[in-house]
């Protein structure tokens, strides 16, 4: 079973909604059926092959090529299979997904993995805001699964997330972990302001110093055992989390006491820095 391969042939003038680009929608379809799937261009209904050269059929492995910056909802609600994107991709990538994996060789828009239940999304470029977040008004963001963004991200990463892991390779903008209810956010390069605002529960780990809200209080420094387990899990994703006592230790900040919440932010202090304080 070879992959279904789609190549964007025409850049849409306005956003194109392509929730059909998902293994769940394509896997059982013959070539012609795939070509005629509906996509939404602005207010008009169009066909998938109006925009894509399509090769292959009946596969839950999908490759998409081209600059998909204006394409929204790719991989929406997918539960299985593998989706690989060679190029940038627009908003809501993998929103509501419950399984399978998405890999993007490029940048992604806002709302990557919003309210997802399970599965893996990796973006090798930058991404927008609200990664793994709850949509406006919803009580709960992502409930499981893993999102890895190699680059930087926008506002409100992991807003109201309950379970699962988000790893951000470069700086995250304000309000990472906003109203977080559980799960883990790993900030390999720190974040801008107000990280963990209104956190109820959950864990944020930053490997770089970050500006802390005044409603977080420094508890103490230690080397949590659970991070050793977590580091092992992350190493499976190719991410290194330091946790050995001879490398350094973590400052633990608790908050957000404005809620009051039982969230925690761990900030890594490498051994030299820890010694010099």
């Amino acid at each position: 079973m070879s992959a279904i391969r789609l190549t964007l042939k025409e850049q849409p003038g306005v956003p194109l909604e392509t929730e059909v680009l998902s293994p769940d929608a394509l896997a059982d379809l013959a070539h012609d059926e795939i070509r005629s799937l509906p996509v939404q261009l602005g207010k008009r209904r169009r066909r998938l092959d109006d925009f894509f050269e399509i090769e292959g059929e009946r596969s839950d492995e999908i490759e998409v090529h081209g600059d998909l910056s204006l394409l929204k909802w790719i991989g929406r609600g997918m539960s299985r299979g593998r989706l690989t994107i060679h190029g940038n991709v627009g908003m809501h990538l993998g929103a509501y997904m419950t399984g399978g994996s998405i890999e993007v060789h490029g940048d992604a828009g806002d709302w990557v993995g919003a309210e997802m239940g399970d599965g893996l999304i990796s973006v090798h470029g930058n991404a927008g805001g609200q990664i793994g977040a709850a949509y406006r008004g919803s009580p709960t963001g992502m409930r499981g699964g893993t999102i890895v963004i190699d680059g930087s991200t926008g506002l409100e990463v992991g807003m109201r997330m309950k379970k699962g892991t988000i790893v951000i390779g470069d700086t995250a903008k304000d309000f990472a972990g906003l109203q977080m209810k559980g799960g883990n956010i790993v900030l390999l390069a720190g974040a801008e302001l107000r990280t963990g605002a209104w956190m109820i529960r959950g864990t944020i780990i930053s490997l770089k110093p970050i500006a802390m809200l005044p409603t977080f209080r420094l508890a103490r420094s230690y080397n949590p055992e659970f991070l050793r387990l977590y580091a092992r899990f992350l190493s499976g994703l190719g991410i290194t989390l330091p946790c050995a006592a001879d490398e350094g230790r973590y400052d633990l900040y608790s908050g957000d006491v404005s809620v009051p919440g039982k969230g925690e932010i761990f900030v890594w202090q490498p051994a030299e820095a820890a010694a010099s304080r």
Partner: protein
Amino acid sequence: MGGKVSCTLGEVKNRADFVLYWGGNPAECHPRHFTKYALMPKGRFVPRGRKDRTMVLVDIRETKSVKAADIFLQIRPGKDFEALSILRALVKGQHVDEKQVAETGLTLEQLTDLVDRMKRAKFGVMFFGMGLSMTRGKHMNSASILTLAAELNAYTKFVAMPMRGHGNVTGADVVMRWTTGYPFGVNFSRGYPRYNPGEFSTVDLLVRGDVDAALILGADPGATMPQPAIDHLARIPTVVLDPKVTHTSRLARVHITTAVTGISAPGTGYRMDEIPLPLRPALRSPYPTDEDVVRRIHQAVAEKPDWMAAGGQTTTTQI
């Protein structure tokens, strides 16, 4: 999850013995606010008017409103969210130390005193302006003050409300809500309303260049929006309905002059507290009303072939 606890302005007039303004300058921006609703008037349960009220002003600089305040708290720019977070913690008796407060430019003593006053009030109100809602943190700044007000109700009666900008913004909000379920940032491209601020709100659509035409009513985005949004409006066919020449009408392909609602056209305006007021025209205008024009555009569009894809009248799987 917090919420929004509010009242009509008459409640403020009749009851408020504690009035706080955060990031607003009503003395200059809402000149009648002090005298008509919030500060000066004698109310049913505050018979001595101004004497029965404590007024606190929180802002980053001394504006003209400071003169009207009993207490002025000069906060460091961009630290509103932090200060409001500390207040929420203090209201609940959480420990916050002096060092944590320092970055706000205020002292623990000032904030503790403020919390005491708020809890002692019989009826407190917090008004907030664009100095809070449009600075870094934006909707979360507003959410902070609204939540603080909601939480204060565990101790005493408290409400909060935004001091909104000009025009009938509230009215647009109210009507959008009953017709679509959402207050603003609504997208109809799939035939039913969808809502996602940041994705569908006007300024974002324009900045990203996601739209290929614009019809503008009762607003002058050409004067207020960021340059990339203005540039896009100039690029696409933009149609403006406005009684006068505006920044937007200058860059529009079409400007239709309409009658001024409230002066020469009837209508309904919604106050900032969502109370409708009838607008009765005092003059006649040679120009059509906004409503007339939109109705005629709508009729003309209805005569075109329908672009909606054939399908059911409802959907249970929204995208």
